[in-house]
């Protein structure tokens, strides 16, 4: 409850206007997220690594030409991360159980209580009632705090255009699909239905049901049901989660608890904003090395040029 009060106090008070959702929703929201929040159940036991979801995302989000074709499987030789040019990537993981290596699609997990949102000085992020975590590129100042705050290392920084939003990440196809009740492009194209779209609450039931019905196929855990306060995108796996690159050290407390003090700055920032701007900018520049660790190195280099 404490956390909720805190949220109300800081987020609503400071920035209700920039949150698309009415402040009431925040107040009644629980750690289960919005009651009507949608989600996607990613069943990694079904994924065949065809990368169709990557191609579909590229088209739907009008992303630039990829470096290699979407049917090129050589990409699996590396563990890729989401970038400004690819809001979702599929990776292959080697396991030691002698079975065929599992694949896992990654993208923004659309947290119930997103670290990116709570850490953003200018409140560029919105958690919509449909469950999507979207952002307003017009207000983003490129401070990259969200990149550091995201426990899943998702937001990527865009150097390519002065007009595009600076931060880039999966938006759950909010503007073109989710808003209208339609499934995301990546979900729709998946030939294996490794991705199932539905109400988050239904997906959790469905996930547990799959585990119950075919216990040999899954470990008894839905990643994202509780992790970091819960996420809209959920994962089922045959092998322990850390073997498919899911961070099992995060715990179930949302990022909010960790950034409390930090978050306390928000209202102040909003009032004495102009004076602070240069300070934040300095901070961002100084943090650049830190950001490099988490993000595409080659792009960082390019960006400096």
């Amino acid at each position, binding site marked *: 409850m404490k956390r909720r009060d805190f949220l109300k106090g800081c987020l609503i008070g400071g920035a209700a206007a920039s949150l698309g959702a009415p402040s009431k929703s925040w107040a009644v929201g629980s750690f289960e997220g919005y009651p009507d929040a*949608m989600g996607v159940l990613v069943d990694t036991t*079904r994924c*065949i690594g*065809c990368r*169709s979801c990557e*191609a579909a995302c*590229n*088209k739907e989000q009008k992303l630039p*030409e*990829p*470096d*290699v*074709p*979407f*049917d*090129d499987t050589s*990409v699996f030789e*590396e*563990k*890729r*991360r989401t*970038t400004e040019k*690819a809001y979702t*990537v599929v990776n292959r993981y080697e396991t030691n159980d002698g079975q*065929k290596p599992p694949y896992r699609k990654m993208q923004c997990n659309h947290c119930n209580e997103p670290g990116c949102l709570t850490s953003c000085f200018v409140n560029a992020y919105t958690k919509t009632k449909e469950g999507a975590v979207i952002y307003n590129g017009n207000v983003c100042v490129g401070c990259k705090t969200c990149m550091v705050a995201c426990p899943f290392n998702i937001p990527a920084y865009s150097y390519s255009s002065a007009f595009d939003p600076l931060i880039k990440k999966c938006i759950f196809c909010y503007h073109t699909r989710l808003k209208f*009740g*339609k*499934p995301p492009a990546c*979900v*729709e194209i*998946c*030939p*294996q*239905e490794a991705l*199932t*779209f*539905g*109400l988050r609450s*239904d997906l959790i039931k*469905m996930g547990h*049901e*799959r585990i119950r*019905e*075919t216990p040999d196929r899954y470990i008894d855990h839905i990643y994202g049901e509780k992790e970091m306060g819960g996420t809209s995108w959920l994962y089922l796996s045959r092998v322990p989660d850390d073997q498919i690159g899911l961070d099992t050290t995060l715990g179930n407390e949302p990022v909010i608890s960790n950034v409390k003090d930090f978050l306390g700055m928000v209202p102040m920032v909003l009032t004495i904003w102009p004076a602070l701007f240069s300070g934040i900018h300095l901070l961002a520049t100084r943090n650049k090395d830190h950001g490099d660790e988490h993000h*595409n*190195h*080659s792009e960082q280099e390019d960006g400096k040029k």
Partner: protein
Amino acid sequence: MQTKGIWLAGVLVVLFLAAVPDTSRGITVPDTVILNTQSKLYEPFTFNHAKHIQLTKECSNCHHHTTGTLVQDPNCVRCHRNSSETQEVSCKGCHQTDSFSATAMHEKDPKTYHKDKPSLKAAMHRNCLGCHENMKGPMGCQDCHQRTKEGDAFYYSGAYAPKNKPSKGEHNGH
């Protein structure tokens, strides 16, 4: 082709060509079925049903509980121990072409057990690929369906492959 049983695997589909003469129920079993008629990214193709009948012998390998040997899966048996063969055995008879809508899952009869039923596309891919893997059948996308020009563009492949391929290690490097 030893089994009786209703066969009518019209899947996404147009039924095609000569059918095997009557089975015991007077329902015909197609030798071939045209699949994938709706896709823009891949061409339709002719599924050789007769060959698969010969290869697998057992109808229920693909048509699970609807024909051939009846249900054995311990989960299904809980309700279907005494279920007989069904009238409808085509894939599309049970698996919807469009299973996607935000509320679809909620609108379904809450008493229905089979809520987690895959769409037609997924049912076929999972059934075919699952078996192909065990039987060493073809696994590549284009082993079954050729990509269209639009598909090539979509995947940035073939004639649409990225021209300025960066040197190895630069792209996606982490």
